[in-house]
């Protein structure tokens, strides 16, 4: 039997018609005419008809050419997910045209060109895909679009946001957007997030940002700086939070009124440039009590390591000789904190001083994941140790705050 076959099911003394969907754990999954799916033994189903599958209607897009042009670059994720009959779970399947078809309100905000780069879940992202994405986005910027929207799975969206921040000097908004609740549910946050993202991509912003729900209500989206944002909840709509700074703006819904903070980089404040080199031989290591120093042996050939340490930026004393050995062999090591909020300071306690002595660089108030991406970018573009250290300590794209206000 093939998916889509009309079948007759003789089961439990009844005979019903349905559509064969798939085989799952030894049972045939049948969609009955009532719409219910049931799993019954294969021998109780017989195919009666194989309907001719009509080629799917080509989705036609009628757009208002008078509106500003935005490019949608899609990579997949929940904002464009559908059921996969192979596993019965949700996977990314739709392309950018499908997004416009599903969210017709987008067409009132802008005139879109779409580019489907990948259809993957964001846990399958790689630095190599970030680079390819950066090139695609940069091409769109050079083409002269008003802004770029990148649809992305939410799990690693903040890594990609940081990667694009470092790789592209952008005069226009580059907005990453996704959804926390799958697009196939009437309550999905995809439509509101996408419309708010489109509005932000038209705004006066001039940097890479993540636009997602600000609260559990459907009343506003926050605009987060690409280097200061973190996913802070597994499932809630308002999972994305700016850490260490307030969001750099908001988009109200449904009015779509955009407010940008004074701190937000404005449109056309730099010339477009692409620096797409990354050094992938970098790692992020989370310290925990009891960690074995020999774990560092696995990182011997790494060029860069970001440590996610405790409190002000510590690892246990036992680890320090091994770190020093790595540094002496040419590995760049930077310290960040698991606290996420606040700045690393290794001058307060002995352990910290020993770390500095060993050559560990303080990562300021950079988020650990952002520090990792920055490490890849810096090492990709610079070989000189002194310059590397200087770049890591310098605020390049809003990733380090010189001043930390309270809160």
């Amino acid at each position, binding site marked *: 039997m093939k998916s889509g076959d009309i079948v007759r099911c003789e*089961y*439990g*003394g*009844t005979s019903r018609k349905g559509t064969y969907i798939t085989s*799952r*754990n030894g*049972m045939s*999954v049948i*969609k*009955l*005419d*009532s*719409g*219910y*799916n*049931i*799993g*019954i*033994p294969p021998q109780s189903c017989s195919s009666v008809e194989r309907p001719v599958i009509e080629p*799917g209607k080509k989705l036609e897009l009628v757009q208002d050419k008078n509106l500003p042009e935005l490019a949608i670059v899609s990579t997949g994720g929940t904002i464009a997910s*559908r*059921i996969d009959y192979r596993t*019965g*779970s*949700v996977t990314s399947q739709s392309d950018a045209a499908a997004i416009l078809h*599903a969210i017709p309100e987008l067409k009132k905000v802008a005139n879109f060109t779409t580019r489907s780069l990948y259809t993957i879940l964001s846990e399958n992202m790689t630095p190599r895909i970030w680079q390819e994405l950066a090139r695609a986005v940069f091409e769109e910027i050079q083409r002269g679009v008003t802004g770029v929207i990148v649809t992305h799975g939410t799990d690693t969206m903040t890594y990609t946001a940081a990667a694009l921040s470092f790789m592209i000097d952008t005069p226009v908004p580059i907005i990453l957007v996704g959804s926390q*609740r*799958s*697009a*196939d*549910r*009437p*309550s*999905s946050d995809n*439509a*509101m997030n996408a419309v708010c993202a489109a509005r932000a991509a038209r705004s006066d912003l001039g940097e890479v940002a993540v636009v997602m729900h600000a*609260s*559990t*209500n*459907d*009343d506003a989206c926050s605009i987060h700086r690409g280097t200061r944002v973190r996913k802070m909840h*597994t*499932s*809630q*709509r308002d999972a994305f939070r700016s850490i260490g700074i307030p969001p750099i703006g908001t988009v109200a819904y449904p009015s779509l009124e955009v407010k940008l903070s004074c701190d937000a980089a404005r449109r056309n404040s730099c010339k477009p440039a692409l620096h797409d080199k990354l050094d992938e031989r970098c790692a992020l290591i989370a310290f925990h009590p009891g960690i074995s120093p020999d774990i560092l042996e696995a990182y011997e050939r790494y060029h860069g390591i970001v440590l996610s340490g405790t409190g002000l930026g510590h690892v246990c004393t036992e680890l320090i000789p091994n770190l020093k050995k790595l540094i002496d062999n040419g590995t760049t090591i930077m310290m960040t904190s698991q606290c996420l909020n606040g700045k690393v300071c290794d001058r307060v306690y002995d352990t910290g001083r020993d770390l500095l002595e060993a050559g560990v660089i303080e990562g300021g108030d950079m988020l650990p994941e952002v520090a990792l991406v920055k490490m890849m970018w810096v090492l990709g573009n610079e070989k000189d140790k002194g310059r590397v250290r200087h770049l890591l300590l310098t605020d390049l794209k809003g990733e380090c705050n010189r001043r930390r206000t309270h809160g």
Partner: protein
Amino acid sequence: MAEGPRLTAGIEIHQQLNTKEKLFCHCPTTLREVTEHSGEFFRYLRATESEIGEIDRAAKEEMKRDRKFQYYTYDTTCLVENDEEPPAPMNSEALSVCLTIAKMFGMTPIPQIHTMRKLVIDGSNTSGFQRTAFVALNGCLPNGGQIETICLEEEAAQRVKDDLFSLDRLGIPLVEITTSPCMHTPEEVQQVAEYIGMVLRSTGKVKRGIGTIRQDVNISITGGARVEIKGVQELGLIAEVVRREMLRQQNLIAIHDELVCRGASVDANDGTDITDLFRETKSTVLKKAKRIHAIRLGGFTGLVGRTIQPDRRLGSEMSDYAKKCGVGGIFHTDELPAYGVTQEEVDRLRTRMHAAEGDCIVLVAGATDRQVECALGQVVTRAKIAMSAMPVPEETRKMVEEGSTAYMRPLPGAARMYPETDVLPEVIDEVRWNCIEVPELLNEKASRYAEKYAIDLSYATQLVSSKRLPVFERAIEEGIKPKLAAFTLLSTSTELRREGIKIQNVADEAFIGILHAVEEGRAAREAIPDLIRSAAEGCSVEGAIAKLAPSVSREELEAIVRKIIESRSDFIREKGKAALGPLMGVVMAEVRGSVDGKLVSETLRKGIDARLADT
């Protein structure tokens, strides 16, 4: 002789289950007072395509208006109800109850149960769908009919007002039992509903009280169409609902015949903006309206206003359709002049609309052109249905006062179902199925009680359908005399309720405590009503006994009896065993009614016997 229209009806019964936790999260199944809500949020809902790429017709219709909904949360609800977290696996207690019910009807379980999302975007589900799973099929009914399916679903949120919902009820497990269209008289529908209700209660695992069981009735008559009527809460009304639906369908068919005979016609392009005609009107609704549009229904005069069911006309149906666009309703010339609209205004309207004598004009008033055009489109749709070869549309309807019905939405189709990808299928293999124990049916239990405890069958029937049945069963198990327990739980309780005592406040524990006290002789049978009264006021059982019937222990009783026998030994010698009667009164006065009469008489008899043996 011509046969009357043949009725075919089936029912869907929705029964809430009394499980510890909800169906897809670990929240309790407790209903809350709206005033206890601890938070609120709001969302918009939008129709989504099914996995076969269609939008369900019922959902499409709901999309005609703005879908902004507000929700109340409680300290007994969680992120799952808020649609902020994936659901937990299906509650296995609920699944077991559902399987038990399936087994009681002799059904066959589905070996691999798939949870589906049933699209419902009226706001009653935060997610926009109701999770539901097809659990078993093909059971039998005593009338020879069939139970087609049993599904396990989650309950929807309770509407507080308009678009405001309360999340306490959302997610309570619910079984949905669907019968085949096997009933042919209104009375039969009612009997089947009652039978199914009895089977459900036999599990002892269903919620009781208003709103915990709901009946939907599917009705079709020859020449008519299948109609699903939602929310028939009182069993007693089912027969009337069915009778009125038959009447409605017959009248719609008659109206159709008349329309065909008159050569009726409707042109959707005839919609006209007539806002200016009512600038100076005395009708408050029309004066207030920003836009008023009208349509001419050729040949409809007298028929739009014709009654099809008590308090319902064809115009009411058109009005229900129009309301889907957010307008308050419609006006039509069959009912005008009225509502502040004058004859003169009607005349001007007819002239403007080029209405001939047999034409009916329908007016729609609203806030925007878009809203009014949408509503007028709905009126045209409904008018065209009335003229078509299928003049009774397939619809989901809701019950209004006294058994008439109003249009809710089109019958949903298969496109409303989408797999719930966040819940894994449940496997029902032979081992699981064989583990399910079938409880005794309540009607069988009643016969058994009647026989075993020598109580009247009708009394036993009342007992088994009482909410306090578990108390009765526990009391028997703990050695309380069946008649005492039954009498206390039924007759005494009913009498007290009629007195205005809040019997529902008396905990099961309190009843058990009172029964034990009586059984053990710590309180007299006669004191039961007073003890229950105290318990209803929140008094503890022991406290009530101490207050109302200071306890007299067996030893104390024996001492009292000894004393009385001692002081009246001459009288006993003279009267022999016959002394019992007169001495009873003396002892009872002494113990102030706090010892059961039976125990007193027994103790006294033993004492007298012993005294007589001594002499």
